[in-house]
Each structure stands twice: as structure tokens, then as C-alpha cells.
């Protein structure tokens, strides 16, 4: 970063050199708060729980927390893609249930190559298909994301409950490997989560497609006028979210050793909360994978910590709710300096409108 680059000799509105430096110090501080604030909060909360409970700061507990967060983390990463494009996906829980039921049904056979491939592949493809349907309706159907995914949330759920209302138990032992085994000391779900996160991070930071997602979310019209295929980008982000839900459904079923058509109810809210606590903007165009994971982790850590402190579950919920509001408030107050005013109305309008002119 070349400081003041061409600015120092010019008479633009940047003032004298000394005042530039002073204002930069301030800019840096707010930048640091914005970029790393959530990590600081995570560390502080972890330390607080470590001091107040005895079993919290142990390696096994750390792994347990990561294990618990793995399914939600994968869904939240998919959700991040959608939210970055200024959309929202409420159907994640229902897609998870579809993927879960089908993986359960396919996991009752003996472990042949074909049955393993089907049990692993079909849920992913179903998730992808559901996501593509969301994306198609949002992009080419020119319908508001909130409405589309609210509709498919109910539709997918209704269909899967109708298709298979009873829970599926007694899955083959080979199927449970995915959710319950370890590679070395680390459970497979954690490894999967980290793989998904790594891949997502590369896509968002290093590829053209990733850059286009930020552009579409930041200003759809400008993105279109820059030659970006906005509809394709939208289709892809919902497809990614659907695929992540498929994977999450597979993991979820495998961990539990059972599949239910009512799994994942309310997951959409936890996923959105994770993304938002992680500092992503519902206005689109701002957010990172790392911080989304931290957001998900933060919610899980608080919950686990409260359990250890014997806080009752309704109070846990209330605390989590407050954390969501607080996190966004802190984030906004850091941002307002630099990004100027953004009108709350436009958020609502964005959610409820299709973006079509």
C-alpha cells in the first residue's frame, strides 16, 4: 500500500502531511477494529469461560465445540455466498432434511461401491438441484429472494415430510464413518468443514467469480453495466448454498445415525445469525469466510459455556439473541465513519424486491 501515493504534492482535499498521518492513525485503528474486532471478542469470551468453568479450556472440549459447529458452519458458508450477493436463503433447513432423508434411505444397503457412491452422491446432487431451483427463480424469475426461499422452505419441507414421514434408524455402520470417525485426532466433520471453508475462501478471494459476487451484491446495476452476467452469478450462489446444505444433511444424518424429515427446522436463522455476527453486511458486498466461521463458533462457544455454567436453555436463547444484536451494532458503529450513511429502508427494499427494473 503506497501511502498518499500521488496525493502529497496535490492540493486535493487531503490536507497537510501531518494531518494526513494523524488521520491515518485513526483510520488504521478503526480498520483494525473492523477487520479483527470479532476475533478479539472470540478470544475474550473464550478466556472468560475458561476462568469461570474448569472443563472449558481443554483440548477435548475444543474439538467437541468444533464438531458441534461443523454442520452449521458448512451451512453458514453457503449462506455467506448468498448474503454477499445481497440475497437470503431461508430454505437451508428444508434442503438439509431432503438430503438427510435420501442419504438415510440409501444407507441401508450393504457397502458396495454403488451404494456408497449413491448414499454420498445423491444428497449432494439433491442439495444442488434445490439450490439451482432457488437461484433460477431469483435470477430469471425476477422474484425477491426472501419470497422465493420462504416459499421453497415450506414447499421442500412439505414434500419431504409427505414423502417419508417416519424417522429412519439402523443405518449401516459404514455410513456412520463420515460423521463419527476421526483421521488422526481430528473428527472427519471438522476436516470437511475446514476443507469447505478453505475452498470457499479461495473462490471468494482469488477467482473472478468470487469478485463478481461482491460486485453483484454491492451494486447489481453497476455489475450488469460492467458486463457481468448477474443472473448466472445469482444462480451460482444459490446452487452453492444448496450444495452446502446437501453436504450438511449428509454429515448430520451420519453423525446422528438416523434421518428425520423434520431435521433442520430453524437452521436458517442460526446460519444467518452466524454470517451476520461474523460481520457480513445484509446489504451485500461485504463479508469473509473466516469471520463467518468465527461467528458460528462464537454462537456455539457461548452456548456451550452457558451449558457448563448451568444456565437454563431459555436464558441461553435470550443471551444468543442479545449477542446477535450487539454484534451488528458494534459493527455498524465502526463502519459508519468510513462508509457513510446507508439507509435502512434500502435493506428492506432489497430483501423484498427482485432487483428487476
Amino acid at each position: 500500500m503506497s501511502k498518499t501515493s500521488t496525493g502529497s504534492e496535490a492540493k486535493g482535499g487531503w490536507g497537510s502531511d501531518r494531518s494526513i498521518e494523524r488521520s491515518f492513525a485513526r483510520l488504521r485503528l478503526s480498520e483494525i477494529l473492523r477487520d479483527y474486532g470479532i476475533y478479539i471478542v472470540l478470544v475474550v469470551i473464550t478466556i472468560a469461560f475458561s476462568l469461570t468453568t474448569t472443563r472449558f479450556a481443554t483440548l477435548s472440549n475444543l474439538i467437541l465445540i468444533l464438531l458441534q459447529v461443523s454442520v452449521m458452519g458448512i451451512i453458514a458458508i453457503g449462506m455467506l455466498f448468498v448474503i454477499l450477493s445481497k440475497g437470503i436463503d431461508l430454505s437451508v433447513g428444508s434442503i438439509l432434511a431432503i438430503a438427510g432423508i435420501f442419504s438415510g434411505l440409501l444407507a441401508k444397503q450393504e457397502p458396495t461401491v454403488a451404494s456408497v457412491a449413491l448414499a454420498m452422491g445423491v444428497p449432494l446432487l439433491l442439495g444442488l438441484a434445490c439450490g439451482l431451483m432457488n437461484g433460477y427463480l431469483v435470477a430469471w424469475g425476477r422474484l425477491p429472494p426472501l419470497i422465493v426461499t420462504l416459499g421453497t422452505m415450506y414447499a421442500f419441507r412439505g414434500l419431504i415430510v409427505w414423502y417419508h414421514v417416519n424417522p429412519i434408524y439402523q443405518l449401516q455402520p459404514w455410513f456412520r464413518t463420515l460423521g463419527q470417525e476421526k483421521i488422526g485426532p481430528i473428527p472427519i466433520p471438522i476436516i470437511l468443514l475446514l476443507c469447505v471453508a478453505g475452498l470457499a475462501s479461495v473462490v471468494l478471494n482469488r477467482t473472478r467469480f468470487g469478485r463478481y459476487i461482491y460486485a453483484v451484491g454491492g451494486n447489481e446495476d453497476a455489475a450488469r453495466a460492467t458486463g457481468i452476467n448477474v443472473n448466472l452469478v445469482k444462480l451460482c450462489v444459490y446452487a452453492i448454498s444448496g450444495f452446502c446444505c446437501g453436504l450438511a444433511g449428509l454429515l448430520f444424518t451420519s453423525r446422528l445415525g438416523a434421518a428425520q424429515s423434520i431435521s433442520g427446522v430453524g437452521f436458517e436463522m442460526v446460519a444467518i445469525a452466524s454470517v451476520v455476527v461474523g460481520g457480513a453486511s445484509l446489504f451485500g458486498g461485504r463479508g469473509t469466510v473466516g469471520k463467518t466461521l468465527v461467528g458460528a463458533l462464537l454462537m456455539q462457544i457461548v452456548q456451550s459455556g452457558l451449558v457448563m455454567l448451568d444456565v437454563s436453555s431459555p436464558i441461553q436463547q435470550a443471551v444468543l439473541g442479545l449477542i446477535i444484536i450487539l454484534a451488528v451494532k458494534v459493527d455498524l458503529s465502526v463502519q459508519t465513519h468510513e462508509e457513510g450513511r446507508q439507509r435502512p429502508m434500502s435493506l428492506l427494499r432489497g430483501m423484498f424486491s427482485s432487483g428487476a427494473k
Partner: protein
Amino acid sequence: MARMAVNAMALRRSFRVEGSRALFSGAAPRLIVRMVGVSKSFVGTQAVRNVDLEFLAGEVHALVGENGAGKSTLMRVLAGTYTDYTGDIFFDGRPTKLHSPRVARELGIAMVHQDLSLVQELSVAENMFLGREAPSRIPGLINRRLVEKEAGTILAEIEAGISPTQKVNQLSLAKQQLVEIAKGISTHSQVLILDEPTSSLTKPEIEDLFRVIRSAREKGVAVIYISHKLPEIFAISDRITVMRDGVKQKTRAVDEWNEAELVREMVGRMLDEFFPRRHVYLHEEPVIEVSGLTLSAHFVDVSFSVHRGEVVGIYGLVGSGRTRLAKTIFGLSQPDCGQIRLDGKPVEIRTPADAIANKIALVPEDRRGLGLVQVLDVGKNLTLAHLKALSSLVFIDNREERELVQENIAALNIRTPSTRLPVSALSGGNQQKVVLGKWLSTKPSLLILDEPTRGIDVGAKAEIRNKIDALAADGMGILLISSELPEIMGMSDRILVMRDKRVAGEFGRAEFSEEAIGSLAIAGRQ
């Protein structure tokens, strides 16, 4: 007909003779606002530094300066938007702390913002009386009829030609501006602040506005007029204050200024020429030939060509179809019929991606809405249109990207402390340079510029015009759309005039005259 006086000098003269100048006639004018040592800073900049300024009843006080000079910031302090200022403000001689927009409003300070702040979904009347609705007999409800009647009276008074029941989102940008002004007037303000009020108005509309401003002045209102357009400033103001880099330079009566001096105070140096034209157009082969292009709601049967190294200007009033024409050539709208040939070959352009592939670039009129992604940083905005060339397979080459960004920043003299700053933090002129840089990266052979210097400061205007001239000299074909007649005449080799959806005429450089071009654009409209 006075409306047709397009020439700036004539405009000035015609305005001067009308209206008594309250400031200099009769009793000593009353001091309404006195600012002493007012400062305001943001993260990254000290926007206003230690400004002393006075505003009198019954004067039009122009506040001029480059973008980023602090004039809008200073006025937002006065309007109560920025409350964390330092210094003292006296209103009617009493020290006043402007700690909220409400306080300012109750004192009678009204501000019409540069970027419109109307609620698009509400009617004109509802917008004008937002927050001070007339109560109905049934408590809690609004007396809509009364509100609409009052709004109608004000709108008729300023002859805006707008119905109070119309929804704001159905009005043109120019009409919305008039609604904003009517809203300011409806509060019976003592101080009326107009921030760039004419940026989207046509000549007749500007004259309407000026009439309204003069009537406000006669009623003893202090009108503060922020603008870039020097002829207008000379036409309407009684006193002119120049700001530069957040500091007040000088305040003087309008008669004591001349244009060159004013510009020098604004930019801190003498601009020897406003309109550089060093490129010499020699008849070369056409880059683009458009024939019979029609999009019936916006333009009909448009034919023209642009040659290599030629600047073709399109002049016309807002609504004459020029912006839509540009968007259609760029693939943002589909024409009903007509043909476009590039380098002699017919092409079909369905999307902006097609246009880019055919080496066409569009710097759009609406910088905020179409030009930039405000939340992304300067660097990412600069390379957004050119990522394909910067990436192998799907991955972006970071080093190449950084190099391209640095090249652009140097070539266009973009003033930014960091390439990682959100582009929204830059001044208007620098944002416009980013848009230009973004499109020049794609190395177009046809560059369409729609109002490339609107709403930016004098210095940046000159830089952008210099750049356009240099690009033409390098052989780029340029289609320049502008509603600034001096600009389009200064820059172009040929001018097409659009009126009522059609190309009404064409002028070669030898035939340029403000009278002829201006009246052709206006003729038949009333």
C-alpha cells in the same frame, strides 16, 4: 423569446436587470447567520477548517469551490446534519448550538440536498410535508386534502408543472429536484441552502428556479447557493465565497469578481484553458456506424458514425433520448430495430459483455448507480471490467492486478491515500476518474462518455477533458454526451443535436454556435 438566450453572457445580463437587489437597496441588511471559527473533521480528512462566514437576510450567497473543498460539509453543519463541529454559530445574534437537524429546521434553516432525499414511494405532497403532516379531525390521521392543497399552491407558485398527488418515482430527476426545492420553500425558511440545485435541470427549468430564488430573496430569505457552474453563479448571486481545502478563501460582492479570478481562487492556480483541444481530426475510417436505430419509447431512427480519432458530441435536453441511446449501443437495452456496424462489420450487441468484447466502453451518467460498486475498494473497482484479462483460468493474478491499478492511478492522477479505501470515500472527481480508468483498462476503440464531468470540481473537469483529448489523439473514437454546451463545443469535432427522440441536426466544427445548437435543441419544446 428570453428562454432562448443560451449564451452565458446574455443569460447574465438578462438576469441582472430584473428584480431589485434587496441587499444594496434601502436599510442595512439584517445579519441572520454568523459562523465563527467553525471546523469539522472526519476520519481521514479535516473537511472544514476555522471558517468565519456571515449570511444576510435577502441575499443570494454563492458558495463555490472544488469538490472536497468543504462547502457541502459546512452547509451540513448549518443544517444540523453534522453535530460534532467546533466553533460558534450565531443565529439572529444569539449563540446557537445546532445539535440536531430538528433544531436547524425549527430555526428556519432548510437544505435541499445534492443527492435527492425524497421517499420514492410517496406522493409529491406527502414528501413535501413529511414530518409535519396536517392533522385530520380524527386524531392520528392525516388530512390529506389539506396537505395536497397547500402543496399544490406552492407548486403552482413556482410553476413547477407537477401535480401534488403524483408519486415521486414517476417524476424525472429534474422534476424531483423542483419538488425538493418546493419542500424547502414550504417550510417558510429564513435560510434556504441549495446544494448543486441545477445539476439535472434544463435551461427553462433553471430559469424557473432562478425566478423562485429571486422571489425568496425579496421575502428576506438568505439563500445559500452551492454550485460549480460559474455562469449561473454570476447570474444569481449577490455575494460569492470561495472555499478551498476546507478553508474559506475570500468573500466578495459579485461585481468584484471575474471568472478567471474565481477559478484561480478555487483551484489555487490559473487554469489557462478550460477546453484543451490538441487532437487534430483527420478523416479516418469509421469505428462505429449506427443506422436507423430505434427504441420507440426513447429514440427513433438514429443514424450516425464515429471515426477513429474523432470526438462526436451529442447535445440535447434531459429526456431527449441521448442517455438511452448510449445504453442501447452498450447493450443495456435492446433496440426495436436498426443496425450497428463496427469496423464495417454488422454486429449484434445483446449484453454489455458483447459490447466489451467488441471494444466498446460506456462511462455512464449515473456514477453512483451504474459506474461504481461503492462498497468495493478503489483497486477492485478499477479492475472489475477487465478481470478476464487479468486471470488465468479462474484465478486472478494479484500481481498483475496491482500493477494495473497503479498504472491507472498514475495515468489518471487519481488522488487516493490507499487503493484499499472504499471508493465511496473519494471525492466526486476522483470517483469519476476511477470509472474512466476502469473502462480505459479494457482498451476500447469506441468510448462513450455520458456527462463525464457532471458534478465534479473544476480541476478534475480539466484533467478529464485533457484525457479525452489525448485519447482522441491516440485514435480512439469518442462519443461525448453532455448538457454543458461550452464543454461539448470545446471538445467535439462534430455535434449531433437530439430533440424529441430524434437527431434534429448535425453541426461541423466550423458551424458551431451556441445560439444555433442551443435553439435547435430547445425548439418546439415548451
